[in-house]
């Protein structure tokens, strides 16, 4: 019994439950929510956040953060547009863009692990730098004429369902991320690194290498998102995905990943992503003004930092009570 009680107040479960409640209420009471066009919009618009949230979750668990992800995405999109304008084949362009993302991540990772700089500062710097390079590359152009079969893949739906075609590959990546974080020795070590880097080092865990791998993976996923974004919205501009990093971080924290590292589950993070996405969708349907939406998101962010702590206090208290009886 104490076991199930303790589990009942785990924050990721709370977020999952909130998501289900929100979806049920929205299906029941919000006009236009349940039609398949809206649902596919909802999921399609949330996918970029979800894609980057996967590596970001691992990074935050390990006690680091990458705020340059949206700029990396924007840079990839800009380079993609530029090369397409130059007449290069899309089959060559996309791998190049992904490689670029790897390089962006590598730069972040090396600055953090080799020079020992705080990732918050490093990636605020590269946030500006990568976006600047994107603007130099593409200027104020918008490239829109990508091959239709690619745009269809990024924007189309699976048969008659409301699911975007990109949803299946996302599920694949999600499964990989869950397995990596929760079932592999690498993922296990990340929790130790985030909770106590020194103790992890004394246990023979290769802290710096692991962090570098995470930054590279994050850069890769950010550029993949940038490519997806440009194709999904059929527009490659230097300012694509601006501000996306805040949504990602907000969603990940909302999902119960401890900002101080060492705690959280991917399930919680993804629930957080879709809770935030669904909430924004519902607010738009209800004609809530953009300003008010920002306020709601901000409040959620504060709640998300507070919530897991409160939940942990409750479960600790119950644990103690259960132990004392």
């Amino acid at each position, binding site marked *: 019994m104490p076991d199930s009680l303790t589990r009942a107040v785990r924050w990721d479960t709370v977020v999952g439950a909130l998501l289900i409640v929100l979806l049920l209420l929205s299906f029941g009471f919000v006009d236009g929510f349940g039609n398949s066009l809206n649902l596919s919009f909802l999921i399609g618009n949330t996918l970029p956040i979800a894609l980057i949230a996967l590596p970001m979750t691992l990074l935050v668990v390990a006690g680091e953060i990458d705020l340059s992800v949206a700029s990396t995405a924007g840079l990839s999109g800009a380079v993609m547009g530029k090369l397409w304008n130059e007449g290069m084949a899309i089959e060559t362009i996309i791998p190049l863009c992904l490689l670029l993302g790897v390089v962006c991540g590598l730069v972040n990772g090396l600055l953090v692990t080799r020079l020992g700089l705080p990732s918050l500062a490093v990636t605020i710097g590269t946030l500006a730098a990568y976006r600047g390079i994107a603007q130099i590359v593409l200027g104020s152009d918008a490239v829109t004429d990508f091959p239709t079969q690619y745009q269809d893949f990024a924007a189309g739906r699976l048969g008659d369902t409301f699911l975007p075609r990109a949803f299946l590959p996302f599920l694949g990546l999600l499964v990989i991320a869950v397995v990596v974080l929760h*079932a592999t*020795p690498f993922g296990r070590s990340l929790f*130790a690194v985030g*909770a*106590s880097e020194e*103790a992890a080092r004394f246990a*023979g865990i290769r802290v710096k290498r692991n962090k570098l791998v995470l930054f590279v993976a994050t850069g890769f996923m950010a550029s993949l998102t940038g490519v997806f974004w440009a194709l999904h919205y059929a527009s490659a501009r230097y300012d694509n995905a601006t501000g996306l990093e805040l949504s990602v971080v907000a969603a990940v924290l909302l999902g119960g990943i401890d900002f101080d590292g060492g705690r959280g589950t991917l399930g919680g993070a993804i629930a957080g992503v879709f809770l935030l996405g669904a909430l924004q969708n519902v607010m738009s349907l209800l004609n809530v003004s953009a300003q008010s939406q920002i306020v709601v998101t901000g409040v959620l962010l504060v709640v998300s930092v507070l919530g897991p702590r409160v939940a942990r206090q409750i479960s600790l208290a119950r644990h103690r009570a259960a132990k004392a*009886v």
Partner: protein
Amino acid sequence: MTHPSDTGPAPVLALQDVSKSFGAVRALRDVSLELFPGEVHALAGENGAGKSTLIKTLAGVHRPDAGRVLLDGEPVVFHGPGDARDAGIAVIYQEPTLFPDLSIAENIFMGRQPRRALGRIDHKATRAATTALMKRLGVALDPDRPARGLSIADQQIVEIAKALSFDARVLIMDEPTAALTGSEVARLFGVVRTLRDQGAAVLFISHRLEEIFQICRRVTTLRDGAWIAGELVDGMTEDDLVRRMVGRDLDELYPKQDVPAGEVALAVRRLTREGIFTDISFEVRSGEIVGLAGLVGAGRTEVARAVFGVDRWDAGEVEVRGRKLTNGAPSVAMSAGLALVPEDRRAQGLVMDMSIERNIGLTGLRTTVKAGLVDRGAERSRSLDWAVRLQVKFARIADAVSTLSGGNQQKVVLAKWLATGPRVLIVDEPTRGIDVGTKAEVHRLLGELAADGVAVLMISSDLPEILGMADRVLVMHEGRITAEIPRSEASEETVMAAATGRAAA
């Protein structure tokens, strides 16, 4: 009154039949204690005996469920630590919490600095008051020095000065000597004697029994929350005290076994880390326990860290069973069969928020693997097996290690490393801050490991431990090995002579 009390000055502070429970756990049962002015009183007991609860009751953190706290003979109720402080009761903890960027004077008078006109802080008066306090303690510390960089010993002095500035009449010192070197302990005792002679009542807690005999007049012993004895130290032996604490005659504290030394398992050659240690060469054979002695700061821990790979070395080499280790790579050292039980178990040995199971599992992440994934069943049985073998007292293997007592935490660290099946084991202060019963268990374990052919390098500031357990003693002084003393010739005198840089024996 259930214990003797002389005629003489009345107690300043006393507990009368105090009980305190947390849920079903009875932390204190009918405990009485009297603190007299001008006297140092020892509080003895194993980890978990109720010493912390007693201190917190005196300090106003806990309120007793039953019984009374008497101040100058009058019953009082402390509603919080502030009340106790105003009554002249101060607690000095083992690890002081000063503001590192403020000066000593500012730390002492934080929040109540002498003021000048318009509420400006009177730095001159603050400094003068601090100097006066230091003079009272007979210590020379510059009031303007920032707290950052002060040794733990100096930080404790600052805490004591702070307590004096509150006109403390009762000073409670919770394991103040655990992290101090011999000469620092001597200085601290000088300060304590000064305070005692000025009429303060001191309650002193230490796991080092010889210290109790050195400085205390009276001792109260607790066991499992119950009051066992309150008596004068005069005429007692260490064995008497241990029997009261443990409740039985202790098996030998240093169960040293004679093991023939085998092959060289660890060879360190001309290892140097610039500015830290120089030209360190030694060997440890399988079956041997080699003690590494020296003063704190002599570089012993730093050598261990470099050998294991947590720090890099600048020159030299390390071989484990004939295999050269890579500079700065603990993972290579581990797979060569080396294990390090670090000195700071809370920061280096354990991830405090993680479960016992996962902490022990950390060293097995590369071995308890099936098809690239963590084999949870194997991890659990490995962790459980070792936790049980080392007799860790826990409720559930999934409990966070932070819920365990210090001695049990240290056993988890040992379990974590013994589970790797090491051929060479380095232990750094393996029994610091753990009670005498657990200490004997740890020593027995080290002896058994050596008998099984493990090469053990034991760093310790506890000389009796080194003399009791080591086949050979290496002594370091200022970053160099100054002596190698065989067991037959090792004594406190020979080791200390080499450790302090006097002509080696």
